[in-house]
């Protein structure tokens, strides 16, 4: 995922707190993807308006962690979601 790209959750893909397992999951057609902390943090910021770069910068301030680290930790995860059509991305 490039810094200038704008991710968005398409219709039919949504965040859900699983009360039974006490975990955040991403619900999508035929899938429930368990989210780790960074996955949940990123997806909570995805609003279809801000770019990946803006999101990682915001998270870097919030968690006091280096931007590059956050981008590196989440980029592969987001690309996998994108390949499954669980994430729309516009340039």
């Amino acid at each position: 995922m490039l810094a200038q790209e704008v991710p968005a959750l398409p219709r039919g893909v949504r965040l859900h707190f699983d009360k039974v397992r006490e975990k955040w999951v991403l619900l999508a057609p035929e899938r429930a993807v368990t989210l780790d902390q960074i996955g949940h943090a990123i997806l909570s910021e995805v609003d279809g308006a801000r770019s990946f770069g803006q999101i990682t910068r915001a998270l870097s301030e919030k968690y006091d962690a280096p931007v590059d680290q956050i981008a590196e930790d989440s980029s592969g995860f987001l690309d996998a979601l994108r390949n499954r059509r669980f994430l729309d991305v516009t340039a």
Partner: protein
Amino acid sequence: MTGIAPPIAMLAELTHRCPLSCPYCSNPVEMALQESELDTDTWVRVFQEAAALGVLQLHLSGGEPASRRDLVTLVQAARDAGLYTNLITSAIGLTERRLAELDAAGLDHVQLSLQGTDADMADRVGGYRGGFKRKMQTVEWINRIGFPLTLNFVLHRHNAHQLERALEMALEMGARRIEVATVQFHGWALKNRDALMPTRAQARAVTRQVEAARKAHKGTLVIDYVPADYHDDYPKRCMGGWGSTGLNVAPDGQVLPCHAAQSIPHLRFDRVQDKPLAEIWHNSSAFNAYRGTDWMAEPCRSCERKTVDFGGCRCQAMAIVGDASATDPVCIKSPHHKALQAQADDHAAQGDAPFVHRTAPGAAREPAE
């Protein structure tokens, strides 16, 4: 049993009624009558119990779920319970107005079956004239609303050559996903092996086509593929293991570990009318029968793949070997593997064997051959 993880998905078979009569219908040959179907309130309670138990995904299926008058109410109740709600439909029975109501009720996703890529094929397989045209009309309405769409193309010897077109159609319809599912031989399909069995050459060609299409449409169209089972050397995995990820509620309230489980005659199923779903999930003898790996015999018991495929399909072991705890006869390690492969080639060579269409619930128990 202790330490049983909660299920993720529930298939609610709202009814066995269906305007179509596909010869591979997964409904049991002996179907539940309309009079025995669960009422609205019971389904609503079951959805709430499912969510409390840990179910995240609800698949509303049938038969044709749109044959239920209370479908919109049920979708609303499922969403209120916090479930991700997927409608598995042939489109017959969905009007533009009903789709709008389903939208307002919060329906998350639509999975549409495709019997063929033209009216000729689709209506012949579905046994319902005009069905294809109505399906195409419904796709327009679905897209106007914006429901995420998955196409389910059930593939067999008669329509395997239409795969390319099915993939194109999925792209044209803006579907995010297509399931290319070679017929699995349970339910009515078991009676139709002569008519439906793909040839080995077809099965290979389809696998190659799917692989190429996956590359070509990466990021645009997700292709989930179920290959032709009898021609394989290893069985399909049984879900995430029997009684581990999903459960199935039949129209009359029986709770099944899988949609074909009623084909295993010694299993006894509990009903949602009699017991809470959580109790059934944990204690039902049918769920515990093949949970884990302790029930396995050789060669599965000492096989390194036993937690990969869980010994394959119990229903298939029952149907072919006559023993539900046997190794799936598809497996190359099964003593029945060779015979099954020969049998598959035999079925595939039956040229113009006629379809045995499923009959309506309550109609003749045995279809006319």
